[in-house]
């Protein structure tokens, strides 16, 4: 069993990112075409809009072993569907306070607006989140609760 210290340095957090197709996903594409290097811990799940991102996704991601979650989409007023991000903003403002109130460390969840032309900002969101969650270590509390095998 790696000692706690070793496991921390060797610890590579698993981050699931729920992003909107029109802005952040395209921003991540731009980060790709610009060859901006970033931590490989993030797996992107594409959704049409942040309006489609359901708190159940975040809960299920933690249940299935994620150590951190990113939710990102278009800046207010830029939404391709005009209002999806406004609904998401309200929904996640409440959800985040609920998570905090039930003792889930909200530093494990990053919310951001990344537009299609902000490849650099996406890289910063990824690297900053991976660094933050790496410092927090594996989400033992949730995973023990979940009794994950392996």
């Amino acid at each position, binding site marked *: 069993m790696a000692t706690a210290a070793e496991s921390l340095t060797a610890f590579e957090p698993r981050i699931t990112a729920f992003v909107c197709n029109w*802005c952040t996903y395209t921003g991540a594409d731009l980060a790709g075409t610009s060859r901006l290097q970033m931590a490989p811990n993030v797996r992107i799940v594409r959704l049409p809009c942040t309006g489609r991102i359901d708190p159940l996704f975040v809960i299920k991601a933690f249940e299935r072993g994620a150590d951190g979650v990113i939710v990102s989409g278009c800046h207010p007023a830029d939404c391709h569907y005009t209002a999806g991000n406004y609904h998401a903003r309200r929904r996640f403002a409440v959800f985040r306070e609920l998570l905090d109130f039930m003792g889930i460390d909200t530093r494990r969840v990053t919310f951001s607006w990344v537009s299609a032309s902000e490849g650099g900002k996406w890289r910063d969101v990824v690297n900053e989140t991976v660094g933050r969650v790496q410092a927090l270590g594996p989400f033992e509390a949730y995973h023990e609760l979940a009794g994950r095998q392996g």
Partner: protein
Amino acid sequence: MARIGVFVCHCGENIGRTVDCARVADALREHPGVAHSVDYKYMCSDPGQALIKQAIAEKRLDGVVVAACSPHMHEKTFRRACAGADLNPFLCEMANVREHCSWIHEDRARATDKAIDLARTIVEKVKHNRPLQTIRIPVTRRALVIGGGIAGIQAALDIADGGAEVVLVEKEPSIGGHMSQLSETFPTLDCSQCILTPRMVEVYQHPRIKLMAYSEVDAVSGYIGNFTVKIRQKARAVDASTCNGCGACTKACIQRKIPSEFDERLGPRSAIYVPFPQAVPNTPVIDRANCAYFKAKAKGATKAACGKCAEACSRGAIDFDQQDSFVTEKVGAIVVATGFQLYRIGADQPQGLTGYGEYGYGTVPDVIDGLQFERLASASGPTGGKILRPSDGREPKRIVFLQCVGSRDPAKGMAYCSKICCMYVAKHTMLYRHKVHDGQATVFYMDIRAAGKGYDEFTRRAIEEDGARYVRGRVARLYRDGDVIKVHGFDTLSGEPLVLDADMVVLATAMRPQPGIEALAQKLSVSYDQHGFINEAHPKLRPVETNTAGVFVAGACQAPRDIPDSVAMASAAASKILGLFSQAELEREPTVARVDTGLCSGCFHCERVCPYGAVERREIRDRKGNLLKVVAEVNPGVCQGCGTCQATCPSKSVELDGFTDQQIWAEINALAL
């Protein structure tokens, strides 16, 4: 058991360099439900696509996953390939292992693991894909063009000539845009009015173009093929149908000294005015802020303070009580062609830009910008085409031109190059030399960017034949000294500081989009960059489209553009629209929401959050007609597939095809393996 084919692309070495594609293919071959898994150098090539078709046939595949570039690049390509092999195209998805993996990671082992994860995620998703049929919706074969400059005019003419109706909306009283203000145009020095006016008349007389000048777009709803646009026809206080454009009213007006916007504040105009002689439509408009009648009325005067124009009008066309009116138009496509404005130093500065006070624009007399020089040089201009100093009307013997004022300057202005200034400054020096034979033009520049056809030769001509003195360096400061302007500059080639006496200074200020472009973009839900320029769908492959289907872009509202660019983009946008209109019906992605009426409890949160009003109410009755319950139902023609209804629905009774709960759940689950 699913029979899914996985195709891992090397993309030359774009993916292959950092992702071990063979190992990804091997790993996926072991994944449950995968019947075929190979890697290939160029999946999007013909042989690559043939691999897919062959595998579908041989292995009876019921799903295809291509682990390659971003779906934004080639999803359509591979779906078309699958359709070619009689596999429903919506059973094919892409795993983005290039932009989201190989290009952004160096560590080969971890990049390969990530690629395997991403491919596995999409395989799990595809297991839950349903065969979908594209949705067909009728197309309104009418187009809306916003902006009546050369780009808007060209687009309107091309579309109308292609047989479709066009609504052309122009904010100013007349179409023509900034091009109508120019004297002559580079690189051929042909007179701007001569090549533009015929086009403007052609628009005015075209049977299929409905010209709405002095109007603005108020609201836009709907989607490609079915936009509903509410347009505000601003009140001119002149009845366009009875007015014959004789101009008697403009001569009778008592207000003579209002700075003319068309002449860039160098010449006067009256309160009731026609912007320029060749204006189309040639109907005057009353400037209510400066008209004595309206100013008095605004202060509550009951008696008419003036009415000279009405008295002078033989046809009784003046109508002081005319109000703004609204018109609703149904169109199938929209072209944004709102053009540019120049960076106005010290005047209405956008927040954050405070640079260039040291160039004295607005404080030191005879310091003007490019458009003002055009008005001086223009025959219909305030000085009848003679180059005279605005301060004392004398002919300047020495003019200093400053390039890149506000452009290529991330610290104080905009970071981008405005593309047209090198050309029009060279043109200005030539016009100056032709009109003032003993005049000496000096140009301070950083580098001359004249990359168009015949462009560099044009600038060389300005230097070699027309004696323009080009000094490579910036100007530090300029100030008034007596009636001469002292220009402190630097010549980087000789390494000497330079102090010149000038009679006039022309600043080549940066090109910026029209004010209010952000509000218009938000009405069209089109994205724009931090400067306000509209974002094209793809800089190289879809330059005249935007990410919002059905909305196209042409001219300087997308980026600094000269006239050839604008016309080319306008025709490109027009051909895209004519292509769109050539289909009887429009095919739309079937990623729309479906309500399971059995589970829906009729709380209608979905109806409240739907931005498109795609949710309708349906009564469920038993055989005897008793109302059992009222449920929600989605109109597939209106639904755009944003999915907000599904995330809002407490009981998850609505599913968005392409992003169903089952598919997202499968993707999240795949990440846990």
